[in-house]
């Protein structure tokens, strides 16, 4: 017979999972419950389940396009940050130049400025450049991230220099060393940066809220938030929208779960 300790541990673990998962289950249940029967309070068994809320959702907003926007913008900003970040990391870790410390310090300074400080002038900048309400404006602030540069520089610094010295003797230039030696060796750090870049873009709300107006340029968080204004009480539609936005990221998460969790754990360890 299992000991009392084992049983209580299991009870706690299961209770924890219930607290974390029930809201998701509830979201799905609500989304297929006929709108009229929601006001009566929760029931576990859905009478006459319906997809009406999903149809209403697709009528209200170009949801497929919005989901696609979220996906490609997150993918693009991840790619940009990996390329710009790893190149800068190599520059800081392996090239000697005057004022390097100062330049790196300036990079770090941008890391400390929160989005909230930037949002007003960035909006004005986009307006002046006539870029507001475009994909470019959505993408612009996440092309390069000082956080990525910082993390990747640490990774490059920790590689033994003998490797690139040997390659230099063999006649390899910076570009060859960077692409064939450094990049493959810093893959774990690249994965961490990728996770943060993707999640950062996927979840980003304040900036899209400020700069995007057209429904066909919206990302999922922004599209969803407008739903609330239009359907203050239509919780079935809002929950259908939530299911719609959770599904793509849940798939990404299930596929890359190990890397995502490792990537996050990696940042906490000194």
């Amino acid at each position: 017979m299992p000991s009392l300790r084992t049983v209580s541990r299991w009870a706690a673990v299961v209770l924890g999972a219930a607290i974390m998962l029930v809201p998701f289950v509830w979201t799905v249940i609500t989304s297929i419950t006929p709108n009229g029967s929601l006001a009566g309070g929760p029931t576990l068994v859905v009478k006459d389940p319906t997809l009406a809320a999903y149809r209403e959702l697709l009528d209200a907003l170009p949801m497929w396009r919005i989901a696609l926007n979220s996906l490609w913008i997150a993918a693009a900003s991840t790619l940009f940050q990996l390329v710009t970040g790893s190149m800068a990391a190599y520059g800081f870790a392996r090239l000697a130049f005057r004022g390097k410390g100062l330049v790196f310090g300036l990079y770090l300074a941008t890391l400390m400025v929160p989005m909230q400080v930037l949002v007003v002038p960035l909006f004005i900048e986009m307006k002046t450049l006539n870029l507001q309400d475009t994909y470019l404006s959505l993408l612009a602030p996440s092309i390069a991230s000082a956080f990525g540069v910082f993390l990747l520089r640490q990774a490059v610094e920790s590689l033994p220099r003998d490797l690139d010295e040997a390659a230099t003797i063999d006649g390899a230039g910076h570009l060859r060393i960077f692409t064939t030696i450094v990049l493959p060796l810093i893959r774990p750090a690249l994965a961490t940066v990728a996770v943060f870049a993707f999640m950062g873009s996927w979840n980003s709300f304040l900036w899209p809220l400020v700069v995007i107006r057209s429904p066909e340029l919206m990302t999922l968080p922004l599209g969803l938030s407008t739903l609330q204004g239009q359907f203050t009480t239509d919780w079935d539609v809002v929950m259908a929208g939530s299911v719609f936005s959770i599904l793509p990221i849940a798939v990404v998460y299930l596929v890359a779960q190990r890397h995502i969790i490792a990537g996050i754990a990696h940042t906490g360890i000194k």
Partner: protein
Amino acid sequence: MSRRGWRNRGWVLFFLLPSAIPLVLFTAVPMVSSAWVSLNRWNLISPMQWVGVDNYTHLLSDPATRDVFAHTLVYCAGYLPLVFAGGLGLALLLNQRMPGRAFFRAAYFLPVVTSWVVVALVWKWLLNPSSGLVNSLLGALGAPQPGWWTDPAWALPAVILASAWKDLGFVMVIMLAGLQAIPQDVLEAARTDGAGAWQRFWRVTLPLLSPSTFFVVVISLINGFQVFDQVYVMTGGGPSGSSQVVVGQIYDLTFRYGRAGEASALSWILFAVILLITAVQVRGQRRWVHYA
């Protein structure tokens, strides 16, 4: 300059410009112009009007500023202990071999990858005062049913609850990594010395976890002071301003009241506060953070 020197300079530009150009354009330039805007009166449309530090002095004496900072502090004070205790608890539970461990870890982490807007909407519905799941459960138990986001006294707690739920998994993963870095022989030595489970936790595990704890506290407070998405979606700062936070105020000042100068000034005050709090923690860490 020698040919070699020029070539080296070329490489430096090649590797740094792809990140330097966007950082200058989309971070440094806005940063400088934000500082400039904060010294002017401006409604985003008519020309700016120089007012010096008036925006700052006005904000510092404005009761509304005090309120939004107070609400933000209350948010942090509620959120931090909840995520920390919860996340540490989950990490301790999962830090042992058990069947289904990978599943539970994945389940606890799922809210972390869900966007804030979704979490806020889902919790707004769960905490719906009349037909939400939480109040129905409370009602079935005979407990009082708060008005949550419709009640000035409960709006912030509702936001805190949703936020802690989302971030528990994040804290758990950090603490789990910290727990796994604790050498087993140290705990073993404590056990042979006769320390009980309780004592081992308080005297060995917790002090050795302090670097992870430090990381969680610093990050949570930085994020906590910047809280916006979930407040905007769940309460819009209401009812009657009872849950308005600093960033919400920056947003409203700019886009609702056309007071961009004050908004920029407020964002710099917020930045200064975050910087100060972080600096104090980094200085204070010597007293309680033990690096192995």
